[in-house]
């Protein structure tokens, strides 16, 4: 049977992708950010997952204002990096484990999580940047070392799904994955965050103390984290900090007791606090 080995929480700042794509990761500004992922890349090699279940949000790329699904699961064969206004990232297309994705979609709907099924979808930095930071530079003509099942969550138009809903969805995703008959190693990613506000006069807000407490809760008390209100995210972590609800999907898919094997936190990457955690199922 398939098994979830671990969870990864990770920011997905677009400028991190740009830094990798333009080869400036060693300069004074970017080095401390990327140094925090050295251990993660070693860890990824050791884990060598067959499939990554990747929770991210689309930034009006596949879903502009015409259509805003709260949860959309990628079930197509592959997903190409989109042009987000500055040209597509020079990274490979993401290949899906289509049979497992369909199994998950069916399981979720029958268990009352009525997700949207996407058979065609371009993917943006929300999905490709976490893969890049965790795998390192993978050239466009190469392949990502794992198959990827994307789950896209609306966090652009208020309200995003609640933390509690996300946490419970994570549990259902785990049951779905672990009822899939093939022996596969799966790692789940929850991406986005941490505190940041990109817009209007309060742009630049960072709340490191809050972020660090959130990382602590990820390890020690995910149920408490699942009860954080939208108002608290908006006020304390900035209007875009609400992306952190996506980490709760990842966390819900893990055991209640986990081992934190790595953590990294750095301010800033562009406008954003970069947070990263690796949690292994005990």
């Amino acid at each position, binding site marked *: 049977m398939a098994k979830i080995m671990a969870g990864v929480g990770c920011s997905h700042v677009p400028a991190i992708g740009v830094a990798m794509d333009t080869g400036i990761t060693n300069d004074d500004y970017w080095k401390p950010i990327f140094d925090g992922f050295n251990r993660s890349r070693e860890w990824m090699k050791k884990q060598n997952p067959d499939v990554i279940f990747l929770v991210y949000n689309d930034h009006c790329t596949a879903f502009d204002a015409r259509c805003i699904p709260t949860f959309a699961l990628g079930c197509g064969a592959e997903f190409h990096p989109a042009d987000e206004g500055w040209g597509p990232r020079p990274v490979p297309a993401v290949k899906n484990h289509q049979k497992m994705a369909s199994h998950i979609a069916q399981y979720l709907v029958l268990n009352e999580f009525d997700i949207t099924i996407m058979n065609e979808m371009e993917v943006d930095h929300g999905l490709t940047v976490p893969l890049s930071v965790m795998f390192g530079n993978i050239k466009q003509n190469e392949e990502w070392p794992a198959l990827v099942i994307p789950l896209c969550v609306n966090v652009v138009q208020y309200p995003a799904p609640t933390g509690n809903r996300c946490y419970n969805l994570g549990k259902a995703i785990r049951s779905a994955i672990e009822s899939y008959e093939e022996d596969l190693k799966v790692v789940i990613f929850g991406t986005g965050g941490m505190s940041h506000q*990109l817009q209007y*006069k309060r742009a630049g807000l960072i709340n490191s103390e809050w972020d660090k407490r959130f990382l602590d809760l990820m390890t020690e008390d995910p149920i408490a984290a699942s009860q954080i209100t939208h108002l608290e995210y908006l006020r304390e972590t900035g209007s875009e900090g609400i992306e952190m609800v996506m980490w709760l999907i990842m966390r819900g898919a893990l055991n209640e007791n986990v081992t934190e094997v790595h953590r990294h936190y750095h301010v800033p990457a562009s406008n954003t606090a970069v947070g990263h955690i690796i949690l292994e199922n005990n």
Partner: protein
Amino acid sequence: MTKKEYDNIPGTIVFDADRSREGYHLNQFCISLRLQKNRDAFNENEEVYLDSYPMSRQQREAVLLRDWNLLLELGGNIYYTSKLAANDGINFQNLAGRMTGMGVDSYREMMIKGGRSIEGNRDKSEWGED
């Protein structure tokens, strides 16, 4: 309009259904600039290109003037307006520098020093606003 629980967060516009409804055509215009062929057409003649998007006169003016804060006040969302900025060669950080009124260099400096503190930035009363 009914007061919303997030209305007293200072310097922040929450992109909810009311904003989304008001900003629909503005945002759809902005997102069209994701694609190079549309960027080319827009850059060739902004006025003509904007004619295909039935936005309000005020929204249209704000686009032409690149009034980044007004665009948000009129229903724009940052992930959309950032496409207009990207077309102009302005990245997220420089856009934030403009929206905060700090300018690009002071904004970048603030971020390097750890960003804008949450202290004094939780409630409009702390900004001397209602």
